[in-house]
């Protein structure tokens, strides 16, 4: 019945200073968030207006959708809250565009500016032996950094777990911090167990991907954070994760049921993979799309740069604003779906290379770095980078994760591993835990057939399904922001 009552909140216009344009990078390219924020502000100063493309659907289409929505309510047994495109109002209908660009700036809710947040980075010394295992040029990641935003008085605390390869300062994590801080929470931002810093400084076996093991590592980090911040007046603990971090959140919550350090009040999973193997298969496959205009003299990256340069030459100036993006994708130079998929796939492949290299280096497996190879601050890592670039997620799992899992857990087949690391392993727990909720998108690129069905059966009315958004592209949309906060308020 929730479907019929759910309405799209008329958005409050986001103030320019507060609206972080950061989310683009983010998780995707993991480059700095700040520059994007700055560019956004600059863009707005120039007086650009984001065009909210109206959903050009006819009246009949509208009626049809209403009827469908009603049917969903009265006939389909699954009680997940489905939201129609009409109600939802999210303008990006292309899942690849949504994944890369996320929400247009003026459709984001107002959140506190960075300067208005009392926040600092802290470091944890969790694995002192890594100072001896890691070569000297990795001194920066022998301790794990996290970011804490403090409220002035007692408040509930929320832990945020970042997505694949993303650090605590990734754009989406930063975005969630602002959202929760504005709503009165203390916020702790954590790197993903698959990120470079976490593998090096906090991961016991430095071979991420085995979800129960990753959850134990995360749990130790959270306990260490709590110990380091023992003065912080916390009224309750909460947990949120997006992308792979959402899967981690579920496993952490399960672990907390027995260890009881936090007794999480609410746990929210945003765009989790359901079957981890399906998701990494999808991501690995994205770099296999047919991309045109490539020959022996030019590469995919060059094609993208060339398009940008040509666009700039036509315009005569670099004007980074939403109008420019709209304009670019409507020009003859626009990227095809295949090119966007390739771009997304490339970002994930770069993450896979980082994971494969770091895990191999720390465990001295000799697959990428010869075990006794001398490395100091002047050593070129380029040959290893090249070798790591050849390894996709599937290669990492086959060459590093499975052998370790077999040796340690007496593991068996790939199917068995997939069962243990995916949400299937937690099905009963998730079904019977009212404190856990999930939000997902109908067009998320990391899902496969049947995944949403599994979530519907398992979560029932604790699931919200949005019709659009790609992979986490709508996490900063005002409707999602409202729903996220509502979930934690309830």
């Amino acid at each position, binding site marked *: 019945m929730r479907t019929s009552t759910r309405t799209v909140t008329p958005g409050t216009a986001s103030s320019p200073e507060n609206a972080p344009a950061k989310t*683009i*990078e983010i998780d995707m390219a*993991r*480059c*700095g968030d*700040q*520059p994007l924020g*700055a560019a956004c502000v600059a863009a707005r100063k*120039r*007086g650009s207006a984001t*065009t909210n493309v109206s959903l050009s659907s006819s009246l009949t289409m509208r009626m049809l959708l209403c009827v469908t929505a009603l049917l969903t309510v009265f006939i389909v047994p699954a009680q997940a809250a489905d939201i129609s495109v009409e109600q939802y109002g999210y303008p990006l*209908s*292309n899942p690849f*565009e949504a994944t*890369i*660009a996320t929400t247009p700036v003026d459709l984001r809710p107002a959140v506190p500016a960075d*300067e208005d947040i009392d926040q600092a980075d802290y470091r944890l010394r969790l694995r002192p032996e890594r100072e001896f295992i890691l070569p000297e*040029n990795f001194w*920066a990641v022998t301790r794990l950094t996290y970011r804490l935003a403090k409220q002035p008085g007692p408040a509930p605390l929320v832990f945020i777990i970042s997505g694949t390869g993303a*650090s605590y300062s990734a754009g989406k994590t930063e975005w969630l911090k602002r959202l929760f801080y504005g709503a009165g929470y203390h916020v702790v931002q954590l790197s993903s167990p698959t990120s*470079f*810093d976490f593998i090096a400084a906090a991961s016991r076996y430095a071979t991420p991907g085995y979800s129960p093991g990753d959850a134990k590592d995360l749990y130790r980090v959270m306990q260490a954070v709590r110990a380091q911040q023992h003065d912080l007046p916390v009224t309750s603990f909460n947990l949120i994760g997006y992308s792979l971090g959402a899967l981690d959140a579920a496993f952490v919550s399960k672990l907390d049921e027995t260890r009881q350090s936090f007794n999480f009040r609410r746990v929210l999973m945003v765009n989790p993979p359901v079957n981890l193997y399906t998701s990494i298969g999808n991501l690995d496959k994205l*770099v*296999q*799309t*047919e*991309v045109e205009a490539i020959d022996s003299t030019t*590469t*995919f990256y060059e094609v993208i*740069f060339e398009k*940008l340069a040509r666009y*700039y*030459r036509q315009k005569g*100036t*670099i*004007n980074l604003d939403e109008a420019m*993006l709209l304009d*670019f994708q409507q020009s003859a130079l*626009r*990227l095809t779906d295949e*090119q966007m*998929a390739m*771009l997304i796939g*490339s970002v994930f492949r*770069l993450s896979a290379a*980082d994971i494969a*290299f770091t895990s191999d280096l720390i465990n001295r497996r000799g697959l990428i770095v010869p075990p006794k190879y001398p490395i100091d*601050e*002047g050593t070129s*890592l380029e040959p290893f*980078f*090249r070798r790591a*670039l*050849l390894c996709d997620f599937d290669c990492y799992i086959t060459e590093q994760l499975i052998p370790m899992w077999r040796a340690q857990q007496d593991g068996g087949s790939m199917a068995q591993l997939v069962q243990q690391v995916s949400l299937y392993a937690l099905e009963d727990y998730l079904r019977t835990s009212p404190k856990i909720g999930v939000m997902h998108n*109908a*067009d998320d*690129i990391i899902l496969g*057939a049947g995944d*949403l*069905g599994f979530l519907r059966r398992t979560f029932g009315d604790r699931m919200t399904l949005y019709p659009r958004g790609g992979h986490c592209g709508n996490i900063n949309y005002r409707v999602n922001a409202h729903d996220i906060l509502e979930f934690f308020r309830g």
Partner: protein
Amino acid sequence: MARRLLLPLLLLASSMANAQTSVPDEDGFTHPLRRLEFNPGLDQHEFERASFAALDIYDPWESLNRRMYYFNYRLDQWVMLPAVRGYKYVTPKFVRTGVSNFFSNLGEIPTLFNSLAQLKGERAMNTTARLLFNTILGVGGLWDPASRMGLPHYKEDFGQTLGFYGVPHGPYLVLPALGPSNLRDATGQVADFGVERQVDYFSYAEASGGEFGLTALRLVDLRYTTPLRYGQLNSPFEYEKVRYVYTRARELQIEE
């Protein structure tokens, strides 16, 4: 700075064009990957090829550059960032904005000079107008009324001018404290510095030559306005990635 230019690359794919509406299955899933055309054998190596090509940047002094990179990393963590934190602690926001505007206004001089050198007349006029409005109406550049009047801020440096006339970038170079550069751009920086001192607008150069404080403030402001953080890419291959992005971003700036 280079990071700023990474933005377009990541942003450019955004738009709201041609939605091919996919029909959801019984779970409501729209199978987004089905709308893509895949290479039939799934054996394309374009990602690898493109990434390998991106690593081919002339870097004969790599070992030295890497050491300098780590030196800068430490300098940043232990000196520059604490200085910026102190600066933020002791000054209100409008003062910091004023300081940034002031130094940015000074930076218009090399931009003007280089726009002229590249025969970009319109840009030179725009920069002259900015310089005049901001200096006179903006009280010596503390405010930036020109941007509000619709005159965009451009940045042209002598490295770009050299590039404009076809000078290759030369070996990649990591400069102490200043970070990624190359032989051409480092030469350009020296030239721009010379221009600023020659013009000696406001007797700033003279004052700062005498007063260590002004130069220090300029450095702190530079760090304050540069959003890049070491370790931000969170990758063991940050050096290589920064090198590529810097080099490509400069090429784009030159072409612009």
